[in-house]
C-alpha cells in the first residue's frame, strides 16, 4: 500500500512492535489515524460571516481485554508518541477489565488490506476556495431576491477530506480517502409580525459535482418559496387522520422511530422495544426495511454522486453490506459492531461507526431504507376523503424504551376528497412506533433519499434515510389548536 507521507510511519516495523507490546495483555486492538482538511463558507444576508479552513491530525488507539475497553486519543502522530500511547491504552483496557462484570472475547476475523479512493469529477482539494465562496454567494442572492417578505437568509457550505488509516490486531490495514460536502440554505420570512423559516440541505460523499445537480441548484429557491408559503399556511386541527408521508418523512420515521431500536447496543442495554424479538412479526407483511451503506457507491441510485451516508468500511474495518432488518414484516437482524456481534453470536454487519478517530465506534445506521411497493401516489391520495399530506421533516424524538414518538413536519396539506388542498404548518404526528408500522395501507413505487447527521452518545455521523410515499391510517395529529 502506497501511503501518504504523514501515514508512512505505520509500517511493518511499528505494527510488529505494537504486536509485541500487546502480547499476552490484549485480546484485540485497533488504531485509526486521520489527516483532515476542510473549508467552511457561511453567509448571512449576502455578507460573509465565517470563511474558515483547517488542517488537523488525530489518532485514536483502542484496546480490548476480556470485556474491558481502553481508548486513548492523541494528536501527535509520531512513532514515539504512538508507542507511548499504546502502552497507556493497554493499561486502560486492563483497568476496565478489572472492574467490568461483562466478560467476553472479540470473535477473530480475517485480515483485510484495502486502498479505497473514490473517483470524483471535481476533487474538493482542487476546487479553489473562491469557487466555494461563489457557490454560497449565488444561493444567498437567489434566496434574498425571491420576495420582499424575506427578512433573513443564511447559507452554509462545509466540506472535508479525511485520509483515514485503520490497522488492527487481525492484521487489517485499510486506507480510505473520504471527501464529503454539504450545503444548507435557511430562509426566514416575515409578515405582520409572524416569522416562518424553511431549511433545505444537500450533501454528498464525493467531489464538488454534487452541487451541480438540479436538486442542489434548487435548494435556495426551495427554501425561499417554502418560507413565503408558510406565512399563509393554517394551523391544523388536532385529531386522528389518514396521512400520506413523503419520502423524506418516511425515511426519517424509519430511521428515528424504528432504526435506533435495532441497534444492537440498545438491545444489549435493554433500551429498545425490540429486545428478543428476532423472528417475530413486527410489521405488516408489505414492510421490508434494509440498511445498505454501499447502495450509493455502486451507483444503484441513479444519482450522479454518492449518497451522503455512504461508506465502504466501518470504523472497525468491517466491510459495509446490505442488511435486512425487516423482511415481509418479520424482524430479521439487528445492526452490529464487532462487540455486539461477538456477544450475540452473530456476524458483524458493518455498523461500528465513530464521528472521528478521537471517539470510539458505536453501533450506528448507514443508509436505512423502507423498500418500495407498487402504489402510484395519485391512487394513494385518491382514496382519502379527509386526510393530511405530510411533507419534509422538521425534527422529532422517540422514547426508545416505550416507543412513544413525535415528529414535526415542515409543511403539510389538507387532503379533501382525494385532492391536495390548503397548506398547513406545524403539523405534528405522534404515536407508538410499532403501531404505525402496522397501520400502513399503501407503499409507493419510487424511493428518494435525504441526508443528515445522526447524533448518539455525543457523536454525530453522516447517514441517509430513504423510502417511498406511504399512506398510514389513524395517526394522531397535533397542532397548537
Amino acid at each position, binding site marked *: 500500500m502506497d501511503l501518504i507521507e504523514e501515514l508512512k510511519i505505520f509500517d511493518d516495523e511499528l505494527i510488529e512492535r505494537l504486536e509485541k507490546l500487546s502480547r499476552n495483555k490484549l485480546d484485540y486492538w485497533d488504531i485509526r489515524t486521520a489527516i483532515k482538511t476542510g473549508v467552511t463558507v457561511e453567509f448571512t444576508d449576502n455578507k*460573509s460571516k465565517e470563511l474558515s479552513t483547517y488542517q488537523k*491530525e488525530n489518532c485514536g488507539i483502542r484496546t480490548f481485554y476480556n470485556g*474491558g*475497553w481502553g481508548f*486513548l486519543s492523541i494528536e501527535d502522530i509520531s512513532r514515539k508518541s504512538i508507542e507511548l500511547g499504546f502502552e497507556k491504552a493497554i493499561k486502560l483496557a486492563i483497568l476496565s477489565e478489572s472492574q467490568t*462484570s461483562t466478560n467476553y472475547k472479540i470473535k477473530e476475523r480475517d485480515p483485510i488490506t484495502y486502498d479505497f479512493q473514490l473517483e470524483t469529477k471535481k476533487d474538493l482539494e482542487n476546487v479553489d476556495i473562491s469557487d466555494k465562496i461563489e457557490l454560497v454567494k449565488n444561493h444567498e442572492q437567489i434566496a434574498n431576491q425571491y420576495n420582499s417578505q424575506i427578512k*433573513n437568509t443564511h447559507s452554509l457550505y462545509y466540506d472535508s477530506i479525511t485520509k483515514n488509516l485503520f490497522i488492527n490486531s487481525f492484521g487489517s490495514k485499510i486506507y480510505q480517502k473520504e471527501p464529503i460536502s454539504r450545503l444548507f440554505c435557511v430562509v426566514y420570512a416575515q409578515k405582520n409580525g409572524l416569522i416562518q423559516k424553511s431549511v433545505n440541505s444537500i450533501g454528498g460523499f464525493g467531489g464538488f459535482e454534487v452541487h451541480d445537480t438540479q436538486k442542489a441548484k434548487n435548494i435556495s429557491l426551495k427554501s425561499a418559496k417554502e418560507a413565503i408559503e408558510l406565512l399563509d399556511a393554517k394551523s391544523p386541527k388536532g385529531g386522528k387522520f389518514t396521512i400520506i408521508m413523503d419520502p423524506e418523512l418516511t425515511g426519517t420515521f424509519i430511521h428515528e422511530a424504528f432504526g435506533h431500536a435495532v441497534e444492537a447496543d440498545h438491545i444489549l442495554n435493554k433500551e429498545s422495544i425490540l429486545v428478543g424479538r428476532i423472528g417475530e412479526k413486527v410489521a405488516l407483511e408489505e414492510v421490508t426495511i434494509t440498511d445498505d451503506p454501499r447502495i450509493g457507491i455502486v451507483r444503484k441510485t441513479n444519482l450522479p454522486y454518492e449518497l451522503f451516508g455512504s461508506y465502504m468500511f466501518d470504523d472497525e474495518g468491517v466491510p459495509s453490506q446490505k442488511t435486512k432488518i425487516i423482511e415481509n414484516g418479520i424482524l430479521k437482524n439487528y445492526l452490529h459492531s464487532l462487540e455486539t456481534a461477538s456477544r450475540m453470536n452473530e456476524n458483524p454487519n458493518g455498523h461500528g461507526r465513530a464521528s472521528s478517530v478521537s471517539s*470510539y465506534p458505536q453501533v450506528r445506521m448507514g443508509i436505512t431504507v423502507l423498500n418500495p411497493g407498487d402504489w402510484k401516489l395519485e391512487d394513494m391520495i385518491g382514496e382519502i376523503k379527509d386526510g393530511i399530506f405530510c411533507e419534509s421533516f422538521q425534527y422529532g424524538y422517540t422514547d426508545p424504551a416505550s416507543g*412513544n414518538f413525535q415528529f414535526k413536519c415542515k409543511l403539510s396539506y389538507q387532503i379533501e376528497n382525494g385532492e391536495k388542498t390548503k397548506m398547513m404548518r406545524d403539523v405534528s404526528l405522534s404515536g407508538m412506533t410499532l403501531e404505525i408500522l402496522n397501520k400502513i395501507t399503501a407503499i409507493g413505487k419510487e424511493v428518494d433519499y435525504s441526508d443528515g447527521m445522526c447524533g448518539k452518545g455525543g457523536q454525530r455521523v453522516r447517514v441517509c434515510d430513504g423510502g417511498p410515499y406511504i399512506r398510514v391510517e389513524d395517526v*394522531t395529529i397535533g397542532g397548537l389548536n
Partner: protein
Amino acid sequence: MSNNFDPYRLVQKVLNLVEEKNINIKCSEAYLSMDEYLNVDIEENSIKYSKLGVENGISVRIFDKKGACGFAFTNKFQNKYLENMVQKAIKLMKGATPDIDFKNLPKKHKNYPNIKNIYDKNIKALEVEDASRYIEDLIEVCRNDKSAISQSADFKTNCSEVFILNSNGIDISRKETICSISSYIIAKDQETKETSFGYDWQAVRNIEELNAKKVAQNALKKAKRNLKRKRVRKMRVPLVLTPQGAISLILRPLSLAINAETFQYKRSFLVGHRGEKIGSKLMNIEDNGVIDGATGSSICDDEGIPNKNKKIIEKGKFLKYGLLHNSYTAAKEGIESTGNALRSSYSSPPGIGVNNFIFLSGDSFKQDIIKEISRGILLDYTGDSPNISTGDFSGLILQGNLIKNGEITHPLNETMVGINLFDLFNNISAVSKESKTYGKYSAPYIKVDNVNVIGSAP
C-alpha cells in the same frame, strides 16, 4: 506534546506572523486552547470504556479595514503549519465581503473579576483508577433495585487552559476544570412488563461536589415514576414545571431568544418587546458569569472580555438591555459587549452563549404548590423545544404525571402540551423556593395556569 511547548509563545508567534506579512489589516486575534480529558463509560450497568485524551489547537481571525474576515485553525504547532494557517486566513479575508457593522476587536481590559473555585487541582491530578468510587456508586444504585434493569452512565473530567491575544492589547489566559456524571436508567414494571427510562446528571467545577449516588437515585426515581403510564383526556389545567422542565421550556428557549445575533436578524419571538412586560411579576431572570464555583463562571469570555452579572427579566419586564452580546453584536448597537462571546472550541469563531442562566427562586414551597392543585399536570421532560421565532410550543410529554387532589399520581402516555411562550410567561402563578442547577442553567419549580393539555384518551 514536547516539554518545551509554550502556549503563550505560540499565540504571540501567530500574531507576529500576521504582522510580518505587512498587509493592510485592521486587527487580528490568536486563540489557543488545551484540553485534557478523562471519561469512564458504563453500559449495561458495568464499566465498558476507560478513555483519556487531549485536544489542543490554535486559531487566528484576521480583519481588514472594511471588516472582511478570514479564519483558520490547526492542531499542529510547528512553524510551517502556523505559517500555512496565517496565509490561508489572509486568503479568506481577501475573499470575504466587507462588513460595515464590524468596528473592532475588543480593547485591552484592566479589571478582571476574581472568581473562586473554578479550577480544581484534584481534577488535574486525577488518575483513571480514582474514578472507580464514583462508578461503584452508580452501579450499586441500579444493582440494588429490582425494577432497574439496566444503566448507561458516564463520568467525565476536563481541564482546560485558554490563551487569547489580539492586536488591540487583549492578553489573557484562564484555567478551568469541570467534571460531570450522568445516569440513564431503564426500569421495568414487574406486572405490566412496561419499560421506561429516567435520566439525571450533574456538572460541577470541583470534584468533591460530585454525588454519583444521588444522580443515579434521581434517574431511578424518574424511571420508576414513569411506569404504568395512562392516557388522559383533553383538559385545561395548571402545569407544574420541574426545574428540568422549566429549563427546557423557559430558560433554554429564552437564552436563544435573547442572543443578540438571533435578535438582530429578527429570528426571535421577543423582537419588538424590549423594555416591555412580557410575563408575570414572579419572573426574574439573570445571566451571572461571576458566581464562585459555578460551571458557567469564568474570568473572561472567549474574546477576552471580563465576565459580569446581567439582569435580563425583572418582575416580568424584559429589560431594554437584556440581550447577550459578543463584541460584534454589541458594536452594531453601539454598546459594550456583555462578555457572552462563546466558542465551542478553538475551531470556531465566537458566537454567543450564556454564562449561568438563572430563573430566580420565589417564595412558595414546592409541596404547597402541588397541594393546592385539584387537577393538573407535572412536566419533567419533553424531547421538544419551543419555536424560537414564533414562541409556539407543542410537544409530547415524555416524563410527566397527573396531579390529582394535591398529589402526584400516575404518569402519562401520548399526552401533549400546546402553548405560546408569552401565555406561559404571563400565566406563571407560583415559583418555588427550591431550585436545581443543571450545568449552566438553574431553575425552581414553576406553576403555570390555564394550560391546554391534549390527551388521547377517548
